[in-house]
């Protein structure tokens, strides 16, 4: 059942890759942005991993990066105490938002009009991008550094995970805390799946799924090693997770069964994300590379072409390029 898989390895970063984000599906395909401790976030073509450009300007490690849905804007959060908004088409820096401490996470609302930032200053800030000179709305409450902040429930609410071992749900209009989840250890990652309102949380060796509106637990799954990040497939049939043992694990969401594991990275996996069409997932690692993995191994997609043993003599490529990595079926 388990087929060997050749991932697409994307090199270019010179330090660990700590965060990844995909855009939505645009008329030009979909895109991927990677945040790296070398301070130079990169934009790549999502399905092939081709480098498109590097955003130059940050003076410190970039901890968080995100794209808006149509990949026209990018935002990054860095250790130089700023968050920056970029034009993702030209690469120009559009806005620099000064903070009082390291900024760890940035995210756009669905209409790209507002930006949520958070970091070591323990505050959640909401910037209005049509009026960037105005002071941001600030939400306080966390008692230690915030690792991740996300919009949820149609941008009406905010979810934040911090080193104080809590995840809090806030209401945007009242700026009040609605609910809190407390854990025994600090949460390593959080992902929100809008369709179905599912929250994917990782801590220790556990991957937990919660209802994003009520923060009720749906299920938990234990992995063989400490997990740093997990991502749920858009159709919710699988989820993938990666962590300290350098491997990527693929689980069945309904049965919680571990389906496959893949070796490839040379360092702990810091971040895993599914692409918007679910055909591949990207992982960023301490080894400074991103790897793109196929969800359905053996399928012809992007740069992957299935080559069966009988066909090895035939030239039958319909794609623009002949295959790069081959799948042994």
């Amino acid at each position, binding site marked *: 059942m388990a087929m060997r898989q050749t991932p697409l390895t994307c090199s270019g970063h010179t330090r660990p890759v700590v965060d990844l984000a995909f855009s939505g599906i645009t*008329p*030009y*395909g979909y895109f991927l942005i990677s945040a790296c401790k070398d301070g130079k976030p990169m*934009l790549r*073509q999502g399905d*092939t*991993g*081709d*480098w*498109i*450009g*590097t*955003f*130059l300007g940050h003076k410190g490690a970039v901890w968080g990066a995100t794209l808006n849905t149509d990949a026209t804007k990018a935002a990054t959060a860095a250790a130089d105490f700023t968050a920056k908004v970029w034009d993702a*088409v*030209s*690469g*120009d820096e559009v806005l620099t938002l000064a903070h009082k401490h390291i900024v760890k996470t940035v995210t756009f609302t669905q209409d790209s009009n507002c930006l949520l930032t958070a970091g070591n200053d323990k505050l959640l800030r909401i910037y209005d991008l049509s009026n960037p000179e105005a002071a941001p709305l600030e939400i306080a409450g966390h008692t230690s550094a915030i690792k991740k902040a996300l919009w949820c429930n149609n941008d009406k609410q905010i979810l934040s995970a911090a080193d104080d071992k809590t995840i809090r749900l806030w209401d945007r209009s009242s700026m009040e805390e609605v609910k809190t989840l407390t854990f025994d250890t600090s949460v390593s990652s959080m992902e929100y799946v809008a369709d179905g309102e599912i929250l994917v949380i990782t801590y220790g060796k556990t991957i937990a799924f919660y209802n994003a509106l009520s923060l009720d637990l749906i299920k938990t799954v234990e992995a063989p090693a400490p997990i740093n990040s997990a991502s749920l497939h858009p159709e919710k049939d699988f989820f993938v997770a990666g962590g300290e043992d350098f491997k990527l694990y693929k689980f069945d969401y309904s049965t919680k069964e571990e389906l496959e594991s893949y070796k490839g990275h040379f360092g702990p996996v810091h971040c895993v994300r599914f692409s918007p069409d679910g055909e591949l997932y990207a992982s960023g690692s301490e080894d400074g590379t991103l790897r793109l993995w196929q969800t359905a191994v053996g399928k012809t997609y992007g*740069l992957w072409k299935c080559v069966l043993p009988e066909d090895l003599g035939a030239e039958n490529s319909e794609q*623009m*390029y*002949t*295959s*790069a990595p081959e799948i042994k079926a």
Partner: protein
Amino acid sequence: MSQDLAEQRMNIKTNRFVHSCPKAALSSKMQSSSSIAQARQMVQQMRIEASIERIKVSKALSDLMCYCGEHAKNDPLLMGIPASENPFKDKKPCTFL
């Protein structure tokens, strides 16, 4: 049409992104002539860099793989060298005269 726009997007990005160098500071009039010369050089360098033809990594890699495949039969490292032409083959042991 969308392919053109995608290429344009890629070209704009690669032109503006990596090759934006910090601008030289023109400090005082005394140094202005050498600063102007420096700035001219920098602009010239940027023009050269901007005009370099670029292709996507995936395309470059597939071209490389094709090239290697097609020329594999001419590669001495893969096909070996006939012993008669090999200047480094083991010769008979030496004797003292």
